């Protein structure tokens, strides 16, 4: 029996008249890779923002490792063990790549410099460690985002479209890294539009539509679900899943 790591119960977030997250109940097990999909504007990023404390939910609770973290400030949630990346890469532009890593509030007992070096090597961006972060290409910025969150050493990492705009060859490498980390015990939630990518990596997929959590299941279950095909994949009449 696997252990529940992160759980939301009736999570709701509204912006004026718009309900961006509507009563979302969902749980993720330790060691799982969970895909989150849904049409543009269905509330995926909002969901992540609520989970990580950037939005205060209008209703519902968030539980992480048995602790109720609803309404906590972002840095506390991060220190508790929920890390994330951003849909739009957010490097600290006026610092070097290494300084980006060192800025992270790491757990007390680790040697930050050593750890930063290890991670940069792991992600194969150690050769630009002392260059300015602003000069990196789009894909490298995504890798740096991942590297920074690894410095935190969180139990659970939320990734918002880690491969969007990334060259397929590089995307493959990112996926390899994720799998490796997952083998070492890290739990992931991944927002991703690329079905190819999802198929390769996720254990289960949750689907949001208009703020609601409509379906959950394995990739195959979800990709053949009629509601998903209609709301998301867009070609319910096609035989093939479009890629």
């Amino acid at each position, binding site marked *: 029996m696997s252990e529940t790591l992160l759980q939301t119960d009736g999570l709701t977030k509204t912006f004026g008249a718009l309900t961006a997250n509507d009563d979302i109940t969902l749980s993720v097990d330790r060691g799982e890779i969970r895909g989150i*999909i849904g049409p*543009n504007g269905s509330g995926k990023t909002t969901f992540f923002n609520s989970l990580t404390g950037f939005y205060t939910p209008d209703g519902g609770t968030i539980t992480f490792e048995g602790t109720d973290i609803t309404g906590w400030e972002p840095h506390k949630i991060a220190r508790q063990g929920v890390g994330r990346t951003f849909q739009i890469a957010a490097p600290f532009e006026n610092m070097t790549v290494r300084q980006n890593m060192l800025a992270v509030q790491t757990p007390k007992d680790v040697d930050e410099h050593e750890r930063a070096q290890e991670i940069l090597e792991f992600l194969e961006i150690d050769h630009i460690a002392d260059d300015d972060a602003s000069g990196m*290409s789009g*894909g490298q910025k995504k890798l740096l985002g991942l590297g920074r969150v690894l410095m935190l050493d969180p139990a659970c990492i939320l990734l918002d*479209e880690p491969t969007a*705009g990334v*060259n*397929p*060859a590089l995307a493959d490498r990112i996926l390899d890294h994720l799998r490796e980390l997952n083998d070492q015990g890290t739990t992931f939630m991944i927002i991703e539009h690329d079905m190819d990518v999802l198929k390769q990596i996720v254990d289960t997929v949750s689907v949001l539509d208009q703020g609601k959590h409509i379906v959950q299941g394995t990739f195959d279950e979800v990709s053949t679900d009629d509601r998903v095909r209609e709301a998301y994949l*867009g070609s319910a009449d096609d035989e093939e899943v479009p890629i």
Partner: protein
Amino acid sequence: MSGQQQTRSDPPVLRAEGIVTGYGDHEVIHDVTIQSHEGITCLFGPNGSGKSTLLKTLNGIVPIWDGTITYGDVDLSNAKPDEIVKEGIATVPQGGGVFGTLTVEENLRVGGFTVSDQDAYARRREEVLDAFPALEDKLGDRADSLSGGQQMMVSLGRAMMTGADTFLLDEPSAGLSPALVEDAFELVERLVDRGARVILIEQNVKAALRLADHVNILVAGELAFDGSPDELSDESELMEVYLGL
């Protein structure tokens, strides 16, 4: 005036020859030659290889250090973006780049900025709404309230308003859900059906390859491949290393 309502006839060739450029002292593009072929010319390459930069030399945002850019027999080397638009070359920037605080109607109006003839303007607006009927209801809405796919329609429609016959598209499908990715590519095809030429940057290589009439691969600021999709399929190493295929 060129570029005015003569889309049906084959548009002139946009050709960049021996382009060298970069930012500050940092050279990004090293002597690259590409041109707009009939239909869709795809531009692939790793992140940071200079695709967007090359495109921006074509639309005048990034000045070139060396080389020439011609459109038919018009020399456009280091011409200003507004002059280039008037020649009939329109851009859909990376991420769509709609003016979020403007309404859809106003986005179209800015697109038709260079069109002084009221009739031509009205006609073109009709064409855009024909192509994207979904926009009709949204004309008065702020563009940033639209979904990603709708925003892409606005961006394409806005580019069409300029009356261009050559389109430069920078990753129009990025960040879109699979249904919208399809829509986006359909829209691109529709442009071509209208007789336009398109230069298309894409990371969604598989889908883009299905449409491509010609392929360029840019690696580290140099052209690694220039040929038809069929020729590309012979280059398995290129395909694997740079396109992940």
